[in-house]
């Protein structure tokens, strides 16, 4: 048992994940073609977003649709930096996303270990209460929550958003489900070896759960990045605004700068895109539970 724990996880290679028979050339082309067509349909809104970001405000919504910006207004991409506080919004959003994601991934995966691998009375009931709160629509308790936050002097500070997002039940739930796929034998073996529960969490569970941690990181990041209602309710001062809140400020009561909104939306998607592409390999990183065969 001791030795098996030290076996380095062997990466599952290429197609072994899901053994598929090699496709013939023609079918391969057909497959790529289908995927390509599907990709076009999926990317259509993004294409429209990019095109609209190159139009002037009153040309964005028209009948019939203009699919191509005939006279591209490239200056939108310069104007947005000079006309608005895009830099501040971006800074706040990056800061919030980083802090929230870090906290959520840490506290979530930590608590999940307690729920998944430590047996104690009341555990399942508590866990149900956790998931239960996911089922309550936020807009129905946002006022009591707002009053509490304001008593804690947190409203109109970035801490409000951190507090709001970092302790969610989602991360706990996700990590718990993932940990449960790790066989108990592995953990018992470690316990017999004298490893503490915290050691098991850090040295066995965390390395084994890279794909789940990566998914949780990305999901939390995107949620915080794109969150609108939370910042709307809690942040008033313009120097605290996030991107989503800032972009909505282009809509005033009697008019809206739709082209700039689309420009900002395109810009705000780019960082997530980069992170997603860079983080790809972690989502499909195989974990080796090979040792338990014997």
């Amino acid at each position, binding site marked *: 048992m001791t030795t098996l724990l030290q076996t380095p996880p062997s990466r599952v290679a290429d197609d072994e994940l899901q053994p598929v028979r090699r496709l013939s050339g023609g079918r391969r082309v057909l497959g790529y073609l289908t995927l390509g067509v599907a990709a076009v349909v999926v990317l259509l809104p993004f294409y429209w977003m990019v095109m609209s970001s190159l139009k*002037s*405000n*009153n*040309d*964005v*919504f*028209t*009948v019939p*649709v203009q699919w191509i910006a005939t006279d591209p207004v490239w200056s939108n991409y310069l104007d947005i930096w000079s006309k608005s506080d895009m830099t501040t919004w971006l800074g706040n959003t990056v800061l919030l996303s980083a802090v929230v994601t870090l906290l959520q991934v840490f506290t979530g995966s930590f608590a999940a270990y307690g729920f998944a691998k430590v047996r104690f009375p009341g555990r399942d009931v508590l866990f149900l209460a956790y998931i239960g709160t996911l089922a309550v629509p936020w807009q129905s308790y*946002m*006022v009591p929550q*707002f*009053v*509490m*936050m*304001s*008593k*804690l*002097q947190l*409203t*109109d500070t970035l801490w409000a958003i951190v507090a709001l997002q970092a302790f969610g039940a989602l991360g706990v739930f996700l990590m718990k489900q993932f940990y449960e796929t790790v066989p108990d034998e592995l953990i018992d073996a470690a316990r017999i070896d004298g490893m503490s529960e915290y050691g098991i969490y850090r040295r066995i569970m965390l390395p084994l759960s890279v794909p789940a941690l990566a998914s949780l990181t990305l999901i939390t990041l995107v949620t915080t990045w794109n969150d609108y209602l939370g910042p*709307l*309710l809690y942040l*008033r*001062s*313009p120097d605290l605004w996030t991107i989503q*809140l800032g972009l*909505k*400020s282009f*809509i*005033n*009561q*009697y*008019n*809206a700068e*739709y082209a700039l909104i689309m420009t900002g939306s395109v810009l705000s998607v780019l960082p997530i895109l980069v992170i997603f592409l860079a983080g790809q390999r972690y989502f499909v990183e195989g974990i080796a539970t090979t040792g338990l065969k014997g």
Partner: protein
Amino acid sequence: MKRSLAALSALLLALSASACGGDDAEESGPVTLTLAGWSLATTPEFKTLADGFRAAHPDIAVELKEYDAANYDTQMIADLAAGKAPDIYVQKNLKNFYTYQNGKQLLDVSDVAGKLGSGVGGLSSYQVDGKTWAIPYRQDSWVLFYNKALFDKAGVKHPDGSWTWDDYGTVAKELTTKLKAAGDKALGTYQHTWQSTSQGFALGQTAGADLQSGDFGFLKPYYEKALALQAAGAQVSFGDATTNSLTYQAQFGKQSAAMMPMGTWYIATLLSQQAKGDADTFEWGIAPAPQATKSTTGTSATPVTFADPTGLGINPKISESRIEAAKSFLAYAASADAAKALAGIGVTPADTATAVDTIFTLKGAPTDDLSKFTFTTHDTKPENPVSKYTAPLQNVLKDLHTAVLSGSKPIDAAITEAQDRAKNEVLSK
């Protein structure tokens, strides 16, 4: 674990400490009032009021607090509930005025109202139980915007203030046909997708119409006319307008429609869009909204139209020492000076007669007499008569609006359904 326990107790301590301590410290010296506003960067009216007031009262500073234009009331309700709202806040429409007034979130300002000039429109809407709870500073009203260039291109006579809805419908169709013949794709008119476009006029112009009666038969002729315009192709269909998120600013500003019933707030937007190039440059004018009957048409009568006033109210949590300053701000906002200052940025103040000379000298504004008549002479009924039932009834009627104009339900069936819902879900409470 220890650390998180410490953090927890610190949080609880903070909670109990802040629950007892308030910030009622009496300030001495210069007074600073806080005022709520929305989209401050693009909505100059709040700064105009603050600056104008400061000039007349150098010892009182006014600090603006920014809110979101679309979600103003959600944010304000949360702030009021948490006791964090500014001293003076805006009553954006009458629907939510009821929420604030009934929730005891407004200070009695009857003494301010008593000293106002008679030209201030919209005041009566803020009077409940014999007291006044807010002071209007702007009173828009719905009028008919028209594109003089497109009228001329089609060879159709400009509006003269004598139109009923039937006349308007005939002209809309005539314009569509003649513009098409002249090689222009513009349609005769554009009625925006809001429920008020049909319902506001119906409620304001029909004698005896009352939301709370639960009888919505008065809506029928207005919807029949709207549907007829769609069927004739004289106006973009409701389905196409909603699925393509059409904006009224683009429909009129980019000359896709020759006429458009809209509130006077659009004057400022149109002027600035024409100046910036977001809208085409063309000559336009405003005419009185079409009327239900001939009796209120013509420049010797007073045309009936609708719109909610926009007012200012005082947060009752304001410290004693600042109440007088806040009241003088309200009085200023409704004064002739403020009316002129607001008109200078294209805003329709509550006192339109004082402002007419200012607003029509703005660059790009129309100069004809009918536009001036339209701006100053109107009997403007509230869009949302103040009552407990107005907000839920408007929600019922919104469903009627989308069902009828999308063609999902015939008008008679929709009215019957709305009446049933009003009776069972709203008026029975």
